[in-house]
């Protein structure tokens, strides 16, 4: 039998009192596991690192890009108003849109379904400040040179220098969700501590971008 739900959404998990069945469940074989991975928190670090240089070992960006390109990150860094979901990077069900503040459309906010934590009993992922990345942080479809330059440009990345980028990706709870997405979504495969080490090495080298 074909699984219409796909990874990240298991309607059989839904919480029901004993003996209950759902009137609409059979008609709703669709996926909802939105995998938003974004932060509009605009923080400015006092760190000494500065961003966007093209010097140094550009290969240092490769391991960083491997993580940023993972669906847990990239699904909610669209260059449009439409988030993707699931490991298959499908367009989000229900015509979910960015809205004026990256928090969903009025009447259909992200938080209507995505709470501050994963809801395993319903197959719905969640984390604090669940939202899309701002449009300036749209990364989908960029090659690694473009991605690196977008990541390190304070005009596009929320005013962050390299130290602030490291801090953001080390501690932001929505970023950390990518390593514990629950509901059968594939986590970022690199241990977070290893990623932070790789990110820090790249930042300490001046944030070099590949040509």
């Amino acid at each position, binding site marked *: 039998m074909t699984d219409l739900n796909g990874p990240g959404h298991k309607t059989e998990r839904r*919480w029901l009192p004993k003996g209950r069945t*759902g009137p609409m469940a059979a008609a709703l074989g669709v996926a909802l596991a939105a995998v938003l991975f974004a932060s509009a928190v605009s923080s400015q670090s006092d760190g000494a690192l500065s961003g966007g240089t093209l010097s140094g070992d550009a290969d240092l960006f490769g391991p960083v890009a491997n993580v940023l390109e993972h669906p847990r990150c990239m699904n909610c860094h669209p260059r449009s108003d439409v988030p993707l979901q699931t490991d298959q990077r499908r367009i989000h069900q229900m015509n979910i849109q960015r809205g004026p503040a990256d928090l969903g459309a009025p009447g259909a906010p992200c*938080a*209507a379904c995505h709470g501050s934590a994963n809801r395993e009993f319903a197959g719905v992922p969640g984390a604090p400040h669940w939202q899309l990345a701002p449009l300036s942080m749209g990364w989908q479809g960029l090659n690694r040179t473009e991605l690196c330059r977008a990541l390190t440009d304070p005009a596009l990345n929320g005013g962050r220098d390299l130290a602030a980028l490291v801090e953001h990706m080390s501690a932001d709870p929505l970023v950390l969700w990518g390593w514990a997405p629950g509901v059968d979504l594939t986590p970022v495969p690199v241990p977070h501590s290893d990623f932070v080490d790789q990110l820090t090495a790249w930042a300490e080298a001046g944030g070099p971008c590949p040509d």
Partner: protein
Amino acid sequence: MATMTTTNLNINGTDRAVETEHDPDDLPLLWALRDNLGMTGTKYGCGAALCGACTVHVDGAPVRACVTPISAVVGTRITTIEGLDDPVGKAIQNAWRELDVAQCGYCQSGQIMTAVALLAAVPTPTDADIDLAMDGIVCRCATYVRIRAAIHRAAETLKG
């Protein structure tokens, strides 16, 4: 014998105690409303935030009660269809009646709660605004055209 816990919630302006044998981190608000408190206006459709029939307001924002554990709404203001008596809520419900929006009616609680949230945020919505807000609320009777008309009617009423 199962251990009972008590979770205090503010629902429609009234403090209510939910006594349950379930873990408050796992018991959806929907079932606390329906089974523990007897408030059956909020409907069960899918149990997975796919249909919107269970939509309530938490601090004024629409939330799917079927995927929201009661532990997550302690200290908030919960509004259900039974408590929808503000001017926007009344205007929406009046428009629903005037245009005979409901057919089977099963989803209409979720439709109305979502429409109220939309109008509270966007007092004069366009068709596109309405479609974006309401796309996640499934109506098997396909009353979508009347839903859209009723939201416009309520907006006109509220403008005076």
